[in-house]
């Protein structure tokens, strides 16, 4: 039962990863008892399971995921929302308004208009139906301030880090609130524009260098190095 690559090595589609009694995990497939990679990414051997962590992928909706989307269309009975996925999501007024929806009375564009950003949760999705969203939970709803950053959805786990080490470090160093949409859209809200900018730069760096080792330390260093400068500027 051989495996053919070192863990964390970059593989391309069609690379033979393992043979024999292994299970095909993410971004892999089995043909004739051989496991091949189906995406460009880093191999991981997790006991008997072979995974490939993709370096680039698009978001595929899953029920329960927190996502950040843009309103692209206001219809008669709801909003169409772009969640950065191959499918458009739908948001129904009864999930937004805290009272029953009356088409004669309520003007939907007064509540959410085209271009508005929302933090929402996916409540239903399958192969034959487009995803449906809800904002009827605390913490969800229209975004009023902050900065938006788009990163490859597969890199969200790297941004979170082991047990949230990366994200909590960035939050602490910059004093920003960060909401990670699992569709690769990130919302950063801080006290000042500089704080938001610092977090933004850090997140971009994580995206670019997600496949390298010792990243958390380098990000910490970078944030600490930039910090005193800002304070000096304030003193001037």
């Amino acid at each position, binding site marked *: 039962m051989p495996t053919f690559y070192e863990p964390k090595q*970059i593989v*391309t*589609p*069609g*690379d*033979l990863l393992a043979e024999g009694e292994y299970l095909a995990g993410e*971004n892999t*497939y089995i*043909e004739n008892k051989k496991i*091949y990679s*189906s*995406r*460009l990414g880093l191999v991981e051997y997790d006991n008997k399971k072979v995974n490939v962590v*993709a*370096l*680039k*992928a*698009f978001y*595929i909706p899953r029920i329960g995921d927190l996502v950040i989307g843009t309103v692209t269309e206001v219809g008669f009975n709801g909003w169409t929302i772009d969640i950065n996925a*191959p*499918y*458009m999501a739908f948001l129904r007024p009864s999930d937004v308004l805290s009272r029953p929806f009356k088409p004669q009375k309520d003007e939907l564009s007064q509540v959410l208009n085209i271009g508005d950003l929302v933090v929402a949760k996916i409540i239903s999705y399958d*192969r*034959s139906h487009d995803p449906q969203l809800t904002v009827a939970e605390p913490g969800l709803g229209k975004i009023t301030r902050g900065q938006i950053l788009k990163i*490859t959805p*597969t890199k969200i786990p790297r941004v979170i880090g082991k047990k949230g080490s990366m994200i909590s470090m960035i939050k602490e160093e910059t004093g920003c609130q960060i909401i990670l949409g699992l569709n690769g859209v990130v919302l950063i809200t801080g006290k000042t524009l500089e704080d938001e900018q610092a977090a933004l730069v850090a997140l971009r760096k994580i995206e*670019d*260098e997600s*496949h*390298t*080792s*010792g*990243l958390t330390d*380098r990000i910490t260093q970078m944030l600490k190095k930039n910090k005193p400068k800002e304070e000096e500027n304030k003193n001037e």
Partner: protein
Amino acid sequence: MNEKPEKLIDKKGLRLDGRKPDELRPIKLEVGVIPNADGSAYIEQGKNRILAGVYGPREVHPKHLALQDRTVLKCRYHMAPFSVQERKSPAPSRREIELSKVIRECLEPSVFMEYYPRTMIDVFIEVLQADGGTRCASIIAASLALADAGIPLKDLVVACAAGKADDTIVLDLMDEEDKLGKADVPVALMPSLNGITLLQMDGKLTHEEFETAVNMAIEGCKKIYPMQKEALKAKYMGIKEEAEE
């Protein structure tokens, strides 16, 4: 330039550009050259210069073209008006429409079509300079662009042609050999799975000649395959080395 060469193979057995019969033209590959596209690739093969861009999977427009059980792969092969000696009309010609279909059907077996129903993947191929064997070069670039877009693939698709110039079987035909030669056999291959996804022939070959040509083309594909892999990895390896210093 427009004079017809008398012979395609000289006395020493070398071809017009000095290559041996089983030698490929020099290839340069680059991935991620179009920032706006989801995935892209660029190939230089001899004097061929080809760009490929991939968008999607995304919503299907017009909607009635969507399939309920799998994605729709759309492919557009186009030659720039300045890509050949005499200006080519930018409108899609019969040949381009045919090549678009051929390339699409050659890429389809490599894509996991059933993963994303009701969506569409667009592949755009733009030939900037043509020098024979553009369909093969286009397939190489398009497959790289698909992989760069993060679309799950069974394998990369590699393509290479073999043919008959004068009376010799030669690999990777260039323009003159394509036009004046006696036959042309383009082959596309998924090397890891050992599956042929494209096999065409125009001209006349005997059974034995056809077999040697196909085997030669397959050998050519296997030489290009590692270059394709390297090109994909190169995009990320550079960053890795820089960051870990």
